[in-house]
């Protein structure tokens, strides 16, 4: 059986009422197909890719060809015309491949770069960047974070100065997922440093632009991810690259997109925790000590029960936020809760996975340590846990 787009999408997704349980039969069929795809075309190579700290770019074209990059985008722009819930399915299944770096690159491309261009770009910009991006031919990234400004978006220093029919960008960006190899980056820069929140604008900067340099970063985990440090030195982009054609909207655009970005992270963290649990379970029921499988000792039975319970609860919270999101309900609080809690649970589960593996858990040849390193980013990326708690507290009137 060869995977084709027709196999992934036997027929167009019917947009029907979203059930309380979120997933319809169509979603479940999609899940099965994507799972098989992941098992065949990703999982067998993951160990090698992790060892290489790299993977072939073709993976994106393959995903694009199958229509898996553009779940939530309309067909007119090369998307699959499905929905956010279908995309959730894709995220959950790709996470099962067990390479958080790849999942992160993919998410940066799809949930950040593509979504920004779709939501905030004009038709010309969508034609230029979104269509090839959804085919996987052009990779995108998003550049907001800087060496001295993370969640405090208003504090960015990168500047874009209008000069005739172009803008000249100066500054630097850091921790930009997909940034070291992407074909374009959606860059946040100050067009009016005096205007505070209203002085930030977004620009699409293509990789080949003169004055745009980048370097890949070495990280504790997410080793397959192409996370980069970007510098802009008198980097000149045409005025037509200003996203949406109007200055000063960048801050609000970033804030608007945070919800899906964080929700996508929560979905990934939850699926990651589930995968790590299964990996640890497999080992615990196979490894013997004192004449029985260690998973049958009460201490481990109970610790696995705790892990499973927390994972189910996290999933319920994440799906709750997703349910509100797809119904267009304001869900800043719930999304922040889901992002914070899922990343906490995912790391806790990974730490338990290392523990149950004993010495092997500490060895680089076993994947437990990778789950542990990879999931450590959860409470940091996309807004730290501390930022999430601040946001939640604000919604509680504190």
């Amino acid at each position, binding site marked *: 059986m060869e995977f084709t787009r027709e196999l992934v999408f036997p027929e167009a997704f019917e947009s029907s009422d979203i059930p309380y349980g979120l997933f319809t039969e169509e979603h479940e069929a999609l899940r099965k197909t994507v799972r098989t795809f992941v098992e065949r075309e990703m999982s067998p190579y993951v160990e090698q890719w992790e060892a290489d700290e790299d993977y072939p770019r073709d993976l994106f074209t393959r995903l694009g060809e199958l229509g898996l990059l553009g779940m939530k985008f309309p067909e007119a722009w090369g998307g699959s015309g499905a929905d956010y819930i279908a995309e959730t399915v894709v995220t959950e299944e790709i996470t099962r491949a067990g390479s958080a770096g790849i999942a992160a690159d993919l998410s940066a491309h799809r949930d950040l770069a593509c979504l920004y261009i779709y939501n905030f770009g004009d038709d010309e910009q969508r034609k230029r960047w979104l269509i090839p991006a959804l085919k996987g031919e052009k990779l995108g990234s998003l550049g907001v974070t800087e060496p001295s400004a993370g969640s405090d978006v208003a504090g960015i220093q990168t500047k874009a100065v209008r000069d005739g029919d172009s803008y000249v960008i100066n500054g630097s960006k850091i921790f930009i997922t997909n940034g070291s190899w992407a074909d374009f980056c959606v860059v946040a820069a100050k067009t009016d440093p005096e205007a505070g929140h209203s002085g930030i604008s977004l620009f699409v900067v293509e990789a080949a632009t003169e004055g745009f340099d980048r370097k890949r970063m070495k990280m504790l985990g997410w080793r397959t991810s192409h996370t980069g440090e970007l510098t802009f030195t008198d980097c000149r982009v045409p005025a037509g690259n200003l996203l949406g054609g109007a200055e000063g909207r960048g801050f609000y655009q970033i804030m608007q997109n945070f919800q899906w970005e964080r929700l996508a992270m929560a979905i990934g963290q939850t699926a990651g925790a589930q995968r790590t649990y299964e990996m640890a379970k497999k080992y615990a029921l196979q490894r013997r000590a004192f004449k029985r499988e260690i*998973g049958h000792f009460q201490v481990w039975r109970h610790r696995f*029960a705790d892990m499973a*319970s927390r994972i189910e*609860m996290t999933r319920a*919270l994440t799906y709750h936020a997703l349910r509100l999101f797809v119904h267009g309900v304001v869900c800043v609080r719930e999304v922040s*809760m889901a992002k914070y809690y899922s990343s906490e649970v995912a790391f806790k589960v990974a730490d338990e996975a290392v523990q149950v593996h004993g010495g092997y858990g500490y060895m680089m040849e076993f994947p437990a340590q990778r789950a542990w390193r990879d999931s450590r980013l959860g409470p940091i990326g996309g807004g730290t846990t501390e930022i999430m708690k601040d946001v*939640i507290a604000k919604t509680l009137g504190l």
Partner: protein
Amino acid sequence: MPITFFTPEHDQLRIAVRRFAEEELAPHADEWEEQGDYPDWVFKRAGELGLLGLTYPEEYGGQAGDYFATLVFAEEIGRCNSGGVALGLAVQTDMATTPVNRFGTEEQKQRYLAPSISGDKIACLGISEPDAGSDVMNIATTATWDADSWIINGRKIFITNGWRAHYMTLVAKTVRDGIETGHSLFLVDTDTPGFVRTRKMDKVGHRSSDTAEIAFEDCRVPADALLGVEGEGFKQIMWELQGERLIGAIAGAAGAERMLESALKYAKEREAFGKPIGKFQAIRHKLAEMATKVTALREFIYYTAFRWNSGEYVVREISMAKLLSGELSFEVADECLQIFGGYGYSMEFPVQRGWRDLRLNRIGGGTDEIMREVIGKMDGF
């Protein structure tokens, strides 16, 4: 239905239960807690309002509602500010009577279910014994067949409503001709000779609730006191426990939510070093963490209730809900008590009561440890 399964009818029910709890019960809570008892009219009044048979068939006086009606009731009744009263009512509606509705004969339903729904008869459930709690298989109380009736001998302990109940839904080991036939359920009138209320138990929380120890001393009940099929009692009580644990989980989560609400209010009012304590980041983040856990817990319980209402026998998820609810509700209660400082520790304020009452959720209806056994085993460990 997509965002929530609550209908406008559920919302109305919520308002009705809340009013009953806040206006008719809560004003007496301090007094009842102090005297370690509450009056029987609470059951009668709840029955009058139609709150004791929300999911039961109309022919027995019930409202024939779905499980979400029960959920709403369990969430709101806690607003009476006395865990003991809420638990007494929950035993009546969702623990002692559910087997009668499910396994009872028409006559048993007329005799026990209908008056329980109207609040005329108060029910209790007899599972735990001095030497057997969650280990139901180890129950030692026997019902021995003798000519045309059963003779019951044994002891039951921690029986909520046990002091005042008119009847008990009992689990005992049945014996015929000296041979054990398994576990079976019985409906025993508490005025039967040989049904002895040994003592009322003193507890750290749920103080208004009458918790009794019962002794059966050659207590003879007729053949038709048997509920359901002889020897099927273990299976029947395991089924009952699922509903009991789910409602316990709901009540615990709602209790945590109420504690959090009050701590939030207090943190906004109480000032220290020139600003409300809720503006200090340590307290803000603590409240954010609690709100997150309470929301996650509630949504998990809702989803589990949704599946239970659809007829799925979700033992694993109910056990998880019970475990998480017990742990988190007490954790939240403890953090809230901390936020209240000295007032939290003072008996004049209700915070300590919430803390004491919620502690039971990690024990009653199957301890945390039993829940982990169930979940772990179901997951293959």
